[in-house]
């Protein structure tokens, strides 16, 4: 398996590539694409990078200490990672979240932790931010739609929170409930999915050190469109498994019903581990387009089993038929 465990002495990709560089990388590709199409290369305006910088300029810094679990791959530009999102509460077009998520209020914010736990509690976001040391984790992110990014997240293992609320013996699964407020989220008016957006993990998946309770990215707090102020990141599963703007974490005995599981049970399984051998009914999962890199100049890359995290998470699924439990 191609896991690159990062040497902590190595700088993070976000440090290697100055912001202006990784912001402008895509522009070069677009210009090159036009050259391929037979037109002379004109100087592309720095408009897009400037727009994104202006919109994200006011985000508070949230540093995290480098983690050996980070990949050394080149990080996607913040520009791309914050303007190409699936967050249906703000609309189904991938440009909608960046356009409309400004209406999301991330303070005050609380997260209710309840269900099969000895110490249920409502956490204030400020308390959660300080619950454990923040780490920077550079993860691959593979969307079920066939594209991927590399994102330097900031957060700490979900297990830190789980340990503190002491799950009972009945806690087999965790359900994540995300915000559904029509006043802040224009997308809720459409019936594309059942709201609130629900996701879930098996207990051992949630306890895995790679499962990250995430508060920031690129050294700052999360932009609203990326799931502020608190989201989940489960890098070996398709992106939709990582709920955004979480308001409730419920420990359950039975496997929770997820929003996508309800909308398309034959297409979106509970596990939804990245798996190049199990196609989505309507498209292949064997390859992916790395945003900002693959396209005009470079063909799509092969998708790796468990998104390249097989060495760490493979044992969670030992003996399971992953075609059946997709």
């Amino acid at each position: 398996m191609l896991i690159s465990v990062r040497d902590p002495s190595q700088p993070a990709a976000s440090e290697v590539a100055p912001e202006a560089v990784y912001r402008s990388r895509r522009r070069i590709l677009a210009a090159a694409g036009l050259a391929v199409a037979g037109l002379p290369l004109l100087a592309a305006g720095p408009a897009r990078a400037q727009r994104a910088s202006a919109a994200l300029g006011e985000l508070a810094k949230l540093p995290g200490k480098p983690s050996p679990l980070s990949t050394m791959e080149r990080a996607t530009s913040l520009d791309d990672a914050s303007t190409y999102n699936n967050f249906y509460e703000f609309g189904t077009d991938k440009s909608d979240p960046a356009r409309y998520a400004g209406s999301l209020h991330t303070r005050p914010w609380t997260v209710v932790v309840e269900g099969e736990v000895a110490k249920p509690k409502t956490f204030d976001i400020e308390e959660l931010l300080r619950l454990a040391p923040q780490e920077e984790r550079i993860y691959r992110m593979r969307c079920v739609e066939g594209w991927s990014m590399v994102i330097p997240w900031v957060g700490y293992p979900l297990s830190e929170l789980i340990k503190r609320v002491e799950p009972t013996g009945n806690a087999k699964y965790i359900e994540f409930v995300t915000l559904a407020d029509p006043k802040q989220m224009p997308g809720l008016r459409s019936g594309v999915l059942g709201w609130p957006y629900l996701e879930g993990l098996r207990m051992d998946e949630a306890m895995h050190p790679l499962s990250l309770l995430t508060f920031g990215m690129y050294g700052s707090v999360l932009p609203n469109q990326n799931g502020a102020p608190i989201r989940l990141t489960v890098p070996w599963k398709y992106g939709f498994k990582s709920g955004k703007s979480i308001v409730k974490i419920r420990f359950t005995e039975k496997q929770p019903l997820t929003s996508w599981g309800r909308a398309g049970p034959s297409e979106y399984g509970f596990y939804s581990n990245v798996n190049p051998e199990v196609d989505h009914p309507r498209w292949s999962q064997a390859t992916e387009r790395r945003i900002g890199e693959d396209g005009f100049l470079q063909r799509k890359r092969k998708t790796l089993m468990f998104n390249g995290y097989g060495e760490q998470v493979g044992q969670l699924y030992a003996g399971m038929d992953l075609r059946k439990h997709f």
Partner: protein
Amino acid sequence: MGSIGWLKTAIFVLSLVPFLRLFVLGFQDRLGANPIEFITHSTGFWTLTFLCITLAVTPLRRLTGWQQLIRVRRMLGLFAFFYACAHLVTYVWFDQWFSLEEIAKDIWKRPFITVGFAAFVLLVPLAITSTNRMMRRLGRRWSQLHRLVYVIVILGVAHFWWLKEDKNDLSEPWLFAGIVAVLLLFRLLQPAWQRAVRSRKQAAATGAARS
């Protein structure tokens, strides 16, 4: 050049706008994080739109009585083919990088690609036989052949429908389906309506003769 000549020129220039827009957006770095997806969706959208506009020519002609309109239909149809080619080239080149094996697998395994590809294949003979010479040579069979466009547009909407299903958001496919339904219903109902008008006139005429 008569008024239809100017109209033709205007339509030609306007029809190129969506294509040129892609280049302008590209230079301005406004194609988004996934430019290939943007171009694919845009060229697909305009293929369907031009098919619908082409199919609207006959109803418009009947409703307005402006017979000259027929003279812009071929160009509109060829623009539908042009955008379909751009759509296919984007897929074959930048999405699949000419991997014939992958393309064949896609066409075979995925109904959404199967249907879209079939629509393109059916468009090819229509584009080839769009010249005056072919029209003359084929005679009555030309209009029979060109009725394929009804099948093509239905396949096109199905292609779009299946694509949008993954977003669980079918508002745009519904819109296209509605427009196509109206355009096709016009053709189904129009002969019957004309017959009814004609027979009513005849009845009136014979009634008048009898009295």
